Each structure stands twice: as structure tokens, then as C-alpha cells.
């Protein structure tokens, strides 16, 4: 249910003036406890876990309720609810600029693949099969679909910032530009 970009039916943005950091005491505790499960896995597996929520439950849950659901599931999966095992270290990727070249370059037209999967992908539905233009080679990062399965970070791939004309995605009234950051394996020549 998480893939919401462009979905119809949602009303005005709920803007709260001077909102507190946490609206209820338990929210802050959930926020902090995320670190216990994240020490043993990847951000991608955390997101993938939230994505397992039944859609109706996802939409009926608040932000930190979705975190709570995911932490409960990850903690059970990791066995740390009943055991005092030390976490294995999950090595984090580097935000440094990549030094190697890939198949696509600034200015190239690229098509977004249609990565249908029962697993995890960071390609939003509203961009699939659409053609955009590479704005820049942005960084390098391990493939999120793999990191979600393994719970560790593998070899990085190039990630490109790709620009799309919103009119191609949402009709002629949309006069804006949209960019998204897409991995090499999610792009192809148009």
C-alpha cells in the first residue's frame, strides 16, 4: 500500500501549526527502539517489512503505528525478544561520489523498467515504463531489493537522478517536472 505517488482520493494535506515532535508518549519510545532492530539489518528490510502490512491496516495506522508493527516483526524475526545475543555488525555503504562510469550519462534518455516483484523495489508505480532524461549520476548504493532480502548491504550500483515531464505521467494540465533517483538495474535504453 506504500506506493502512493499519484493515487487519487486523498484530501487536503493535514498541516498542523507548532506540532509537537511526538503526539503521544509511546511514539517517542517506538522512534528510539528502531535502533535495536536496525543494528542487525538494512533500512531496506525495515521498509520492506512495513510494506507487508495488509493495505487496510496500513491506511488505518498512524506513522509510528506502522513503525511499531515493523519493529515487532523484525524483532521477532531477529530473535531478540527472547535472547540477549549481540548484534552482528551491518557495514554501512559510503555516501562518497562514485569514481566509475556506467551505461548512462547526463542528458541520456532512459526508460524506467517495470520491476514486477513480490519483493521490494523503490521504483514507484507512476514512473514505470516512462521515459525520462538523466540529470546526473548521483551516487552509488547497494540494490535495495537485494538489501531487503539479505538484511546486509552488497556491492553498490550507480544511481541516477532522472527527470520526467509531469505531463507525460499525469496529463497535459501537469506543467511541472518530477525527478526520481533510480538505480542502474531499473533503467534501460528507450
Amino acid at each position, binding site marked *: 500500500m506504500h506506493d*502512493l505517488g499519484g493515487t487519487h482520493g486523498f484530501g487536503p494535506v493535514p498541516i498542523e501549526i507548532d506540532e509537537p515532535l511526538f503526539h503521544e508518549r509511546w511514539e*517517542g*519510545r517506538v522512534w528510539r527502539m528502531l535502533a535495536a532492530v536496525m543494528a542487525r539489518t538494512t533500512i531496506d528490510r525495515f521498509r520492506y517489512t*512495513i510494506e507487508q502490512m495488509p493495505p487496510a491496516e496500513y491506511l488505518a495506522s498512524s506513522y509510528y503505528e506502522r513503525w511499531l508493527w515493523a519493529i515487532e516483526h523484525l524483532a521477532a524475526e531477529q530473535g531478540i525478544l527472547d535472547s540477549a545475543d549481540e548484534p552482528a555488525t551491518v557495514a554501512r555503504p559510503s555516501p562518497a561520489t562514485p569514481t566509475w562510469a556506467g551505461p548512462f550519462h547526463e542528458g541520456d534518455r532512459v526508460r524506467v523498467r517495470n520491476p514486477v516483484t513480490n519483493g521490494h523495489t523503490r521504483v514507484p508505480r507512476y514512473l514505470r515504463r516512462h521515459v525520462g532524461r538523466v540529470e546526473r549520476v548521483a551516487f552509488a548504493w547497494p540494490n535495495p531489493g537485494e538489501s531487503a532480502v539479505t538484511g546486509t548491504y552488497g556491492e553498490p550500483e550507480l*544511481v541516477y537522478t532522472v527527470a520526467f515531464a509531469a505531463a507525460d505521467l499525469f496529463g497535459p494540465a501537469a506543467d511541472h517536472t518530477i525527478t526520481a533517483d533510480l538505480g542502474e538495474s531499473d533503467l534501460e535504453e528507450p
Partner: protein
Amino acid sequence: MSDLTPAQRTEILERHLHDHGHVDSGDVDAAIAAAESASGDGPSPALGARIVARAWTDADFRARLLNDPVAALAEYHPQTVPIAVLEDTASVHNVIVCTLCSCYPGGLLGNPPAWYKSFEYRSRVVREPRAVLAEFGMEVDSSVELRVHDSTAEQRYLVLPLRPAGTDGWDEEQLASLVTRNSMIGTGRPLAP
């Protein structure tokens, strides 16, 4: 769905994790208090405002911030993920979103506001950004290119808004007082002097 309230489920989870040494409940209390007080040099809208104000007054820093943001921002706070700084101009206005979850420049601005994580913002701002910005009281002229950046990977974005007119001669601290959180997300402008 569980019959327990989120507060009850949180208590059960915390008891298990605390009893097995994975969470220290005293540390949880301290971390919440520190985040709520938002003082010091850690990530917060105030930190972002200082960075924006410096970029408005220091051309060399601005160039470094735009060309190598991870290195430039490390002077303020170490960045663990890539970051890109989006420069607003007279003809371009930038807005950030995460349609898939809630990716946000937390390493600079702290936790995102609830509206940023809402289904309404996530679903609508990519499809009808001018209507969404109007709900924030913001009109973007049709001659200005609106660029909406969906944070679909680990790169985070910070909007570098336009310096308000009428601030000639202002120093960094004065300028920082005009920089709002929303102006660094793209759903607002800096305050008028």
C-alpha cells in the same frame, strides 16, 4: 489487528527488548528528552537555517555546498547518506517528497513534520503540486518551473531557497532567523524581513 493499544504494544515490546539488553529504557527517556529540546548543534531546522544563511552570504561556501554537499555539510554535521542541495532561482522552484515512505533530510533538519509523512502529501504533490502548495498558502507563478523531487533512493534533498529582498547588509544570524523549515522543503518561502 491487535486488540491492544499502540501504547500497550510499545510497553510489551520495550520490556522484552530491555530485559534482553537490546534497549536501555533510561537511554530511551534521555533520547526523547534530547530530541524534544532540540538544542545544541544536532540536526534541526535551526541547523538547516544556519547553513542556508551562510550560503546566502558566502559565495565560496555556496559553491561548495552545491558541488560537493556531503563534504560542505560535514563542517556542520557528518552525513551518512548522499545529499543534494537544490538551488531555487527566479525561474525554478524546488519541492521535495518521498512518495514511497518518509525519506527526509533528517541528518540536517531532524525528524520530518507529520504532514510530510501524510498520505495526502505523498500521493498528491507529484500529481498536483501547485494545488498542494496553495494549501500551504504558497502561490508559484506559472512562469516558474516547478520541480518536484521524489526521494526514491538513499539520496536526501535540501532546498536552498531564494534570499528575501530587503536583506542587504544582514549578517548570517539575522538571515537565519528568516529561514523556515518549510522553505527548506519547498512548501514555503523564507519570512519577509
